[in-house]
């Protein structure tokens, strides 16, 4: 196996705005409609420059109707067409929608549950708990769900999202209130979904999957803002949380593949010149654009149904191990965010209200206190933002800010961001046993494939703490609490 090197990296000049903001000037390449804006520290830029990621930020600035900037969050890394950690808002009047700006894993996202258990109560039973979770939650390659959906049910699920699961007894009605979009993106139209996507999606409904997806049992290690944390039910150090990270599985991939094909033809039909084929797009108002949005909503809803089912089985597993009902264990949902999606939103640009399609690919919505789209419970504190790290380090809970609204169309980072290829991650372990290594640090892991576990070693990722610090210092979200893993299940 040999390492693919992107020649000497990206060495062009960036304009420093302040310690956390850098610009790619609009005249960097002819065809850019707006400048690029990168949120990063000087130290992080060094690693970002190793790949052609910033070239991708510049390429996104070519897309018709792009407003203000092509943004890059500090966890940015190389993606298909759009970088992962990229945000771009296109005016609905003359802008485009691009499946590459959402990604293959549509509505890949994160859900956080809390408990009233503490570390002392959970640690002695962690092996039993992790085994129970692993048994109860379908995961891994080729894993098939415990729920068997018919074609008709699949159509309902695509339209209803998390509500479909709640309606069938998976989870609680109140979970929906604390899920982005109520767990259901409007405008989903199953007639825009191919037979193939349905065939891929049906057996995988309600599964965790493989790769970087996981379920983690965590312990709160630090609280930065006790008042805001307590509104979310995060009350003290040592409290146990459950973090679920998964998306739309093979279904979302097939939707993306199908529509990329349509968009390829559409881009040439509408005379859109692209610097990269993988940026294929169509005008938002065109048939191709509207069809993609309707199909994307189906995949987003499929992903929410997935996280809803998994949350239910996580509650069941805790209940079995601790001998109390999920209600008695205080297993309420804190929030659920998506980090691969495009949404039609209203924003203020140069004092004017503007309807835009915000592409967030590996980026999280971060709306401020008082925004109409956040649940009443969180009206005063802002939308919770969940930032998972890699399995050996930590994760953060943050909230959205007005500054994010003013600067980044209400967006922030989504996680750690890869720095090593999967092969390089394995080699970095130099044959050491990743399971034992994590055990020695008090983290119990159960994975379907040890090989895929090694690919997700800490060394493969940026330190999420640095990522979080940048968005916190830049003011586009505010960190509230930090938690470390106690146990992890992976596919």
């Amino acid at each position, binding site marked *: 196996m040999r390492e693919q090197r992107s020649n000497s990296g990206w060495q062009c000049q960036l304009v420093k705005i302040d310690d956390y903001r850098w610009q790619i000037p609009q005249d960097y390449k002819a065809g850019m409609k707006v400048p690029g804006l990168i949120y990063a520290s000087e130290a992080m830029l060094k690693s970002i420059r190793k*790949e052609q990621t910033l070239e991708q930020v510049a390429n996104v600035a070519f897309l018709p109707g792009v407003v203000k900037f092509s943004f890059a969050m500090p966890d940015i*890394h190389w993606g298909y067409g759009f970088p992962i950690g990229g945000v771009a808002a296109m005016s609905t009047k003359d802008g485009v929608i691009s499946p590459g700006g959402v990604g*293959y894993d549509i509505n890949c996202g994160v859900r956080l549950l809390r408990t009233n258990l503490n570390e002392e109560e959970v640690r002695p039973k962690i092996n039993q708990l992790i085994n129970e979770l692993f048994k109860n939650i379908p995961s891994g390659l080729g894993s098939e769900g415990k729920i068997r959906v018919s074609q008709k049910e699949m159509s309902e699920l695509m339209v209803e999202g998390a509500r479909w699961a709640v309606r069938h007894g998976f989870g609680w009605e109140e979970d929906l209130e604390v899920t982005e979009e109520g767990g259901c993106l409007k405008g989903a139209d199953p007639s825009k979904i191919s037979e193939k996507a349905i065939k891929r999606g049906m057996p995988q409904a309600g599964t965790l999957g493989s790769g970087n997806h996981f379920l983690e049992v965590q312990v709160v290690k630090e609280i930065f803002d006790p008042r805001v944390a307590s509104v979310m039910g995060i009350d003290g150090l040592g409290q146990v949380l459950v973090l679920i990270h998964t998306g739309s599985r093979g279904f979302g*991939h097939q939707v993306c593949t199908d529509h990329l*094909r349509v968009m*390829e033809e559409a881009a040439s039909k509408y005379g859109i010149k692209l610097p990269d084929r*993988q940026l294929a797009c169509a005008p938002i108002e065109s048939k191709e654009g509207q069809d993609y949005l309707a199909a994307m909503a189906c995949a987003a809803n499929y992903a929410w149904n997935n996280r809803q089912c998994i949350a239910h089985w996580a509650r069941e597993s805790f209940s079995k191990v601790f001998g109390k009902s999920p209600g008695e264990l205080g297993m309420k949902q804190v929030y659920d965010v998506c980090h691969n999606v495009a949404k039609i939103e209203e924003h203020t640009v140069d004092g004017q209200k503007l309807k835009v399609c915000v592409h967030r690919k590996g980026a999280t919505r971060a709306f401020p206190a008082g925004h109409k789209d956040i649940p009443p419970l969180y009206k005063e504190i802002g939308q919770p933002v969940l930032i998972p790290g890699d399995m050996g380090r930590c994760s953060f809970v943050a909230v959205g800010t007005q500054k994010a609204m003013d600067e980044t169309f209400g967006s922030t980072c989504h996680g750690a961001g890869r720095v090593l*290829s*999967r*092969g390089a991650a394995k080699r970095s372990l130099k044959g050491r046993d990743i399971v034992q290594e994590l055990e020695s640090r008090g983290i119990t892991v159960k994975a379907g494939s040890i090989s895929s576990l090694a690919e997700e070693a800490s060394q493969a990722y940026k330190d999420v703490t640095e990522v979080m610090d940048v968005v916190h210092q830049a003011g586009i979200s505010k960190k509230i609490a930090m938690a470390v893993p106690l146990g992890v299940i992976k596919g």
Partner: protein
Amino acid sequence: MEKVFEIIDHTADIGIIAYGSDIEQLFSHAALALFSLITEPESIEEKLQRDLEIISQDKDSLLIEWLNELIYLFDSEHILFNRFKIESLGDDQLRATCYGEKFDPSRHRIKIGVKAATYHMLKVDEDSQGYKAQVIFDI
């Protein structure tokens, strides 16, 4: 020995470079490379066959859609293939017969889940030695 394919390692994903003395062999080797990412091709027996027909705009998309069709068959029906007979290959149309079997957890070790073949850094070249194609997969 002539080269069949090699695996390339990429930050977030994984890719292949396939070789072929003619375009048909290139497509067949690219498919074999794909299944070598998923499992050990030697572990796959020829127990079933599938006839596939792909229609697309050009050779590049034909290659991507060919690989995506095979990924789809693995993901939806759990079929692993290890031999590909390209019956005909035009500028925008491909017909092939693929041989393999259903995934059996007791005999097949799945290495990674390949989710899609992408257009990113896609390169199909021809020189005096024959054909060469680079494809990056989303995993």
